[in-house]
Structure formats: C-alpha cells, structure tokens
C-alpha cells in the first residue's frame, strides 16, 4: 500500500480518504510535547495499531454510524481514538476535556451518542452506563450493545464538530471527513505546509482549525505533529518551538499579543506562523513582521461550518494596507456579500460557497432557531460576519452580526448563556453587556433580576454556571438584583 502524500485521496474504509497505515505513520512520527518520548504504535506499552482499536468498537457491539463523544485533552491518544472511531465507521465528536458533566450528559443525549470516551467518563458523573476501556482510555457505553435496538444515527465516514459559539452549546456541524481532508489539503497549499514540517498544535484539537488545518493537514502532507496543551505561556511556547524544532505554528490573536508584550523573539527555525480565530490588528501584524523579518506570517479566516478554512493572507508578502485583510479565498472557495440592513460603505454579510461546507447542523432544539440558518443553499454559508471585499477580491472583516463574542480565543454564544441563566430557578430576566478591557481584551458582564434573595440567588447562579459553562464562557461579573429593584429604579 502506498503512503503517498500527494494526488487524489485514496479510498479507505467507510469512504474515508485515507488508510489506517497513514494514521499509524502520522502518530509514529509525532510527539506529545508534554510527555517524554514518542509513542511507537507497534509498542505494546504505547498505542496499538489504530485498526485494533477500531476493531475493539466492533467487539463492543457499537454499530457504525453511532456518535462517540471524545472528551480528551490534546495528545496522541486523542488523535488515535478520533481516527480509530472513524475507521470503525463511528461518528466521533471531540469536545473539551473540561466540559462539565451536566453538559456532556446533555450533549450525549441530544446527539444520541453511543459512548463517551475520556479519563473522566465514569457512570457516576455521566448518569450511568457500562464502563469499559479501549487502548487505555475509559469508555462509557451509554446503551446496551444491541445493534438492533437503536438507529445508527449518521453516515459512517462523517464527524460532528461542535459550534458552540455560533448556535449555542448543543449544536454541531455534520461533516464528511473526505471534505475536511480536502479542506486540509487546500489549507496546506495556501500556507506552504509540506512533508518534513514539524507542526506545533497549541490550540485544542476540538477546535476545527487544529483538527483539520493542523492534524489532518499533517496526515496528508507528511508533516509531524508536536501536540501540546495548556497552560500557554510565552516562555513555555518558545521553549517548545526550540526543543522540538518546530517549523509551523498556529496561534490566536490574544496569544500573539502575549508574545508581543514581551521582548522575546521566535526562533529562526520557525518558518511560518498562522494567526486566526479572531481579527488581528494591523499594528500587531506589522509588529510581528518587524520583529521576525524572516517569518512567513499567514492570517487565516474560517468557520467550522465551512470545513473550516475559507481564506488566507500571506501577510509577509503583502503591503501594509492589506494587513487588515484575511486575504483571498482558498482554491475551490468563493465569497460574495449580501446586503445587510444598517450597513454602508460597501459592507455586507459574507457568503461563502465551498464544497467543504457542512452537510447540515444537528443537535438544535426548538429554542435555538432554524437549524440550518447558516446554510442558505447547499454549499453556501452565511457567515454572520460583516465584511468588505476590495477590487482584488481580498476580504476585510468589519464586525460580527451574530450574537456571539470571542473571549480568550473561544467563541461564546451570548444568547445561549442568557438562555441558560433564564432557565435557573427564580431568575426573572438577564442581560449581557459586552465590553473591552485593557489591551483590547473582550469580556462580558451579566445583569440578572431574581424573585428571591439576591445574595442566595447569586451564589446559586455562580455554582450553576460553574457546573455548566466552560471557564471562557463565564461572565467577568454578575450583578444580581431583586426584581422589585427594577421597578423602584424606573
């Protein structure tokens, strides 16, 4: 079997565009930065060949098409289990390992997941089930192994990627893995990623960018992954770049600001840096380039619904006037604007046409609005972002239209937060106020009115939010007032 990294996607099991050997080869050449030494897939004390783990799912009686929640931190094990589930015909859904139990339970129920995998997948936390393990990781089977007893769910060869920022905490995009891999190839082309590159993964693998534009891109280009996790500190980041001879890295604008706040320089071995996930400021782009004149700096724009990559700006090769742009669409992707009320100056909502768009959105409930409001036609997505497009086709981000903010690099749906708070006992109303702190960081504050004692309600709300919202999703402050106060203040 050829492990060729170029040319058309080879046909693997379940319509996957790769064979198991390619996955094993990727894991064998990759490294967990936070653990000593590489893991050899033929070493019995490390990870088994990925087909063995895939076969393990079959032995457990989990039928193809079943969703599997993967609540695992960044690492070779997470990727091993992600690809093993795909090769077993299952539909993996990666989520943050920090996801509170109540939310994992709700996610699993909403998506009809057959199992939850992760160190904290125990029946006590997650509402029962049969606990087993696969390749050293606990797996909680949520339903009895009775293939005839429940529907398969989704087409084998697909995956579910959460879109908590855009549509609430329980919506996900259903993507064929073949189109994600196609998107990964296009991303690799746009940033010059190639065999022999050492790619540092600092962003969580449950982010579509890290999964597709880094892990899947490494799978098909022959790159090597260095998998890292929190905490992120400039010193630790720079040490990893040097120690692992990293040639390619990807950060969000808040993380690049941390780097720019110090005086350290990136090591010269780092050929390229991509920055995306939120808007970069032209002055910061200029500062990064001025400090690292050899560096290839790419600004990226995308969204999970699009598979995810949409456009790239090679900032190092562009004049400063373009540093406010996220570049031109990738090959196979086109962009247009649609008129948006209240906007002028040639701006409009960005529409993206791509053959890597999600098949559909799933997991929405009645209160979440239309399930596929972003998918305005097959392969055409309304991004919810306001853009201008210049005469050369470069995309210039203006602002968000939709009701979400990016906090610490994490997209947060404020409507979903308000809905959650509104559902708490005694809460009459709640409102979110978005603000900017020192250094341009974004935050939001929550104003809540309650019928009972504000002090007790505030403590109860604090605990409820802690048990449901991720740390990035929590408000900077919560102001709780008795409902009568509103009347009094009027």
């Amino acid at each position: 079997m050829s492990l060729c990294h170029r040319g058309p996607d080879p046909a693997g099991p379940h319509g996957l565009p790769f064979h198991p050997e390619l996955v094993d080869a990727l894991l064998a050449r990759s490294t967990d930065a936070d653990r000593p030494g590489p893991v050899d897939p033929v070493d019995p004390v490390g990870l088994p060949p990925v087909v063995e783990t895939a076969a393990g799912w079959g032995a457990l009686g989990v039928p193809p098409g079943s969703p599997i929640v993967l609540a695992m931190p960044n690492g070779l094990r997470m990727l091993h289990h992600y690809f093993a589930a795909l090769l077993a015909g299952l539909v993996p859904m990666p989520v943050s390992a920090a996801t509170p139990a109540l939310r994992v339970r709700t996610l699993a129920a909403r998506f009809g997941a057959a199992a939850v995998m992760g160190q904290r997948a125990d029946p006590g936390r997650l509402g029962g089930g049969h606990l087993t393990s696969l390749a050293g990781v606990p797996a909680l089977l949520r339903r009895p192994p009775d293939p005839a007893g429940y529907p398969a769910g989704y087409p084998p060869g697909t995956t579910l990627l959460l879109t908590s920022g855009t549509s609430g905490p329980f919506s996900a995009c259903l993507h064929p893995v073949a189109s994600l891999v196609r998107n990964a190839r296009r991303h690799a082309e746009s940033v010059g990623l190639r065999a022999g590159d050492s790619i540092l993964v600092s962003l969580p693998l449950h982010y579509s960018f890290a999964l597709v534009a880094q892990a899947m891109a490494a799978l098909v280009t022959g790159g090597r992954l260095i998998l890292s996790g929190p905490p992120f500190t400039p010193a630790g980041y720079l040490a990893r770049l040097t120690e692992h001879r990293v040639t390619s890295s990807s950060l969000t604008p808040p993380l690049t600001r941390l780097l720019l706040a110090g005086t350290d320089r990136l090591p010269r071995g780092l050929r390229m840096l991509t920055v995306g996930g939120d808007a970069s400021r032209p002055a910061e782009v200029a500062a990064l380039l001025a400090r690292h004149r050899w560096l290839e700096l790419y600004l990226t724009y995308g969204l999970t619904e699009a598979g995810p990559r949409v456009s790239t700006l090679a900032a190092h090769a562009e004049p400063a006037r373009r540093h406010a742009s996220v570049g031109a669409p990738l090959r196979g992707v086109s962009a247009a604007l649609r008129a948006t009320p209240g906007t002028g100056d040639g701006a409009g909502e960005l529409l993206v046409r791509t053959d890597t768009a999600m098949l559909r959105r799933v997991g929405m409930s009645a209160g979440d609005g239309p399930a596929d409001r972003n998918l305005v036609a097959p392969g055409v997505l309304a991004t919810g972002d306001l853009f201008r497009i210049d005469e050369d086709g470069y995309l210039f981000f203006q602002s968000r239209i939709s009701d979400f903010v990016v906090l610490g690099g994490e997209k947060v749906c404020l409507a979903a937060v308000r809905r959650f708070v509104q559902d708490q006992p005694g809460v009459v109303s709640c409102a979110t106020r978005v603000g900017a702190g020192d250094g341009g960081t974004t935050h939001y504050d929550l104003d809540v009115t309650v019928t009972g004692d504000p002090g007790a309600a505030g403590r109860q709300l604090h605990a409820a939010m802690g048990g449901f919202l991720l740390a990035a999703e929590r408000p900077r402050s919560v102001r709780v007032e008795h409902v009568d106060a509103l009347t009094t203040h009027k």
Partner: protein
Amino acid sequence: MTVSETVRRILVDDIFVEVPVESMNDDDSLRDVFGLDSLGFVELRVQCQQAFDVKITNDDFTPDNFATIRSVRELVERLLAGSAHPAAPAERA
C-alpha cells in the same frame, strides 16, 4: 489546612473540577484527570497566589509546575520557602 488540601479545595470550589476532594490523588494529571483547560490553569494560578500570598511568575507558570497537585504543592512550598515572610495558607471559607 495543608498546601495540598488547599489546592484541592481551589480545584473544587473555584475551578469547578467535578472530582470529590477525597478522590483526588496528588499525582493525578490536572489536565487529563481533572480536565483543566487553559483558563482553568490561569484561574488556578490566580487562586494559588491569593491563597498562599505568593507571586507565581510567568517563568514559574509552566506545564511542569502545573502538571499535578504534587507539582503545584512543590512550587508553592518552594516559593514560600524563598519568601522573607512565609505565610500559612489563607483561611478558605
């Protein structure tokens, strides 16, 4: 309350780790077993600074020092030993 006990209480009360204090082991991974994400680590750093009245610099805020309860405890003890006025852990409500 010992340093280790205080760190456990911080994990449960401030970071909302869903592992009972009595089930926590000093060598469990903060990331893999307790599920801390990037902001969870930032919160742990802030809470440790407040609880133990120490300054955790960027140089000390490393994956190695924040790998387990034991490594956090060792970091805090090192910082307390190096300070002019070692403080007992602040009382936690």
